[in-house]
Each structure stands twice: as C-alpha cells, then as structure tokens.
C-alpha cells in the first residue's frame, strides 16, 4: 500500500482512494455515439506510466489525476481536477 498526496488533504493511505478510469478513455463532450463508444471502451494500458482518474472517495471526495507507473507503482504527479485539467 502506498500514500497518495491529495492536493486538498495532503498524504493519505491509498485505501481512502478509488481508481475510476484513464484519461485516454474519457469521451469528449459532444462526440458522436460511435466515437464515444470507441473511446469509452479502449485504453492504451501501457506497461509504464499513464494518466489515471482517481477519487479521494473516503476523504474529501474530490477527483484527481494521477500520473502513475504500473510497473513500479511510483506516483510522479497528482493534480486536482478542474476545467483546466480536462482542457
């Protein structure tokens, strides 16, 4: 288990957080249905770092974007989600 540094609450145990999905699987608002399905249902799933959407579910309940390595489990960045993150 590791610590995730919530931008709002500071370092907290991973168990307080839930993983939701990857940044590359968010369908843009207004995408046509076929394209939306394609994006929702596919991921790069790399054997290295990827940008992931997590939530501090059992804390402040805010959404976060983690840049996390799937081999080493190291977290290189945690960003609060706002309009600027999704732009």
């Amino acid at each position, binding site marked *: 288990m590791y610590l995730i540094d919530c931008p709002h609450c500071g370092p907290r145990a991973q*168990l307080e957080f839930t993983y939701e999905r990857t940044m590359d699987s968010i369908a843009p608002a207004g995408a046509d249905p076929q394209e939306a399905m394609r994006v929702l*249902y596919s991921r790069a799933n790399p054997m290295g770092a990827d940008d992931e959407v997590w939530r501090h579910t059992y804390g402040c309940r805010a959404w976060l974007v983690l840049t996390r390595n799937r*081999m080493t489990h190291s977290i290189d960045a945690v960003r609060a989600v706002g309009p600027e993150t999704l732009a």
Partner: protein
Amino acid sequence: MNRYSVFGLMRGALGGQKHWQPAWRDPEPRASYDVVIIGGGGHGLATAYYLAKVHGVRNVAVLEKSWIGGGNTGRNTTLVRSNYRLAPLHNLFDFGLKMWEHLSDELNYNVMFSPRGAMFLGHSDADMTMLAQRGDALRCDGIDAELLTRDEVAKVEPLIDMSRTARFPIEGALMQPRGGTARHDAVAWGYARAADVLGVDIIQKCEVTGFVRDGADGSGAVVGVETTRGRIGAGRVGICVAGHSGQVAGLAGLKLPIESQTLQAVVTEGVKPMVNSSVMSQSLHCYVSQSDKGGIVMGGDPDNWPSYARRGQPTVIETAIAQTIAIMPALSRLRMLRTWSGVTDMSFDGAPIIGPTPVRNLFINGGWCYGGFKATPASGWTYAHTLATGAAHPLNAPFALDRFVRGATVDETGVGPMPNHR
C-alpha cells in the same frame, strides 16, 4: 514419442528409470511459419495443438518470452466450472468442461481433473433467488445445476459455520457437480508435449518485441514478428498473452477494451482433507478449495486498479482470507505458506475477446479476466478454428473484439465499461 503408461513405468523401473526423454524439443526458430502464436500459456499451447491435430496446420510456432506455463496458467487457483448465467458464456465454458472430462486421455498426460463439485453459497433470500434464476438458465441449456438447501450444504461441507449467528448466514447454495479443479502446470506441459509431437515448435525465452507489417508506411497486414531471437515470418499471428494483451496489441498500434490488474491468491500448509468441493461466494468475494497436496487455496477480488507489477496489496488478500475464515472458522488455525499474484487481462464486460483485429492477419485471444483457466481447452479449440479458417467459430462469435462499439457486450454481472468494478 514415448507414450506414458503404467507398463512404461514398470519397464523403466527395471532399467533404473533411465528411459525418460525431454517432453518436448527445444528448437531454433525457423525463418517463417504458417501460424505464429504469441504466448506459451495453456491457451497458446492448446491452440497450437488443435491447429495441428484438428486442422492439419503443423507449421506452427508458439513463442514464449520466459518459460511455458509461467504466466497466469501456473499462478491460477484451478477452479473449473461452466455455470455462468449468460448463454454465450456457459455454452463456451461447458464445451470446455466436456473436454476436461477426457483431457488426460486425449493428451496422454495426467491433468488431474477432479470433478469434486463447484458450489456457490447463498447468504440471503435475494441470493437464493439469483442462484435459482441462474440454475434455471443453465438447466435450459442442459448444464447441471442443483439448488441445495442449508442441510445439503452442511452435508457437503461440514466445516461451514451454519449457525444462525454466523457472520455470513448460509441459506443454501447452487451446486455444479461436474465442476472441480485440475493441475495447472500439467495442462501447459501436456498440451506442449502433445503439440510438439505433431510438429509444433515451442520456442521459449523468445519475446515478441514488434510486428512486421506490409505496405510502404508499415501499416498494412502483419507478415511476421520481431523477437529477441530475430525476425520470424508468419502467415497469421495469434496474440495469446493474457495480462500482457494491451502491451502486445499496442505494438501493432491497437488500443483494447482491456485493463491489466493484479489478482492474488494464497495457500496454506498441507493438511488432511477438510474442504471437499470448491466453495465460492459471489455476494462476498472469496473462494476456497483444497489442492490434492492438501494446501487450502483461497482467493478473492483483483486489486482494483491497473498494474503489471505482480505485487499484490496485502489488504485485498486479507479481506478474502477474513471472509473465508468467517465461513469456515476451522481454517483460522492453519499457517499461510505463500501468497502470489498474476497480471490479469480485465475486459470491459468481463467476457473474453477471441477473433480478428482491425489489422489483417493479426488475431487476438485475451480478456479472460480472472477466469480463463477453466476455458483452456475450449479457448484453444475455437481459437485454432479461427486461426486456421480466418472465420469465427460458432462458440467464439459472440466474443468478437468489435462487440463493444456495436453495443453487443456479454456483461455477466451487468456493470458496464468498468473493469475495476467486476
């Protein structure tokens, strides 16, 4: 080939057992093959065997980056059953279960298939309604399913806490008597040996690192693979790499509806027989069976976030063990021997993906999540059909890769595109 038999063993005893031969060759890769299969797990090896045996396609190589059976095949908890709710799933898995019943004879290799029964526990009226509904669906398709009362459950597993104060009360169960367990390594080795005899080259320590593509811009049909042992040409290429599906398909520029997650298991010291069947609870998330060596094997949910690390989170396996002990308190006295994990290929509807990809001559078999061992014979049989003919087999047709964009998912648990919520 040296056929294994009790007479061979007796003859060998007279000669000091010096007659044993390696079970398969260790060939150098040829320049090209009709079919190259990436991944020497049970599924890849079974596919090669049925390609040679059923379709007469013998110019086949299985490329394995480490040693055969060292992936999820050799890490799984070996539950074999076919009692899925949805017809496309239970028909595929039951085709496989019928093959398990004769697999040792077919391969001349003892896969130790042991149909001791697969039992899903019900903890509430709602559970029992769900289990009855599933049982009905199964029996409509001729698959065995028996709804057990509390007393019948207690008879099968006397060590289950049946008291009314139990942490997880037992209301009954759904039993599949033909379900059971098998010996995981033997499945890989048995298929490898039988495929090798038919001319299949099994090439270990050979990692696929890229695809060779036709066309000026290198985006055409696949015509071979780049490997750590050089370039190998191929008529057709079949990906069969379980948890590494996303990574290998990515070498061809594909994004799959698959996410890789860690799945853990645990085994205790060996003890005398105390768990008679395989016991599962889907309302909780735990299952338990006893290996033929006596170890109590337990498992539960995957760690619900992406990872290729094969390092499990202790809290996840602790939850599975705690639930199992609540059901069978006697297990609490046992000592843990080891825990381990594998990288599972979690698909977005929880069902496998078998069939062509958008890249010509490139096929995929993956997305088996935490439940593909039981499908090994059926997966190999139907994937061999697809690789030999280029067409879907009736049993794998519902599992085509494009089902997700067609809105035709096979969603056993009805969760939607959430591999982390299965």
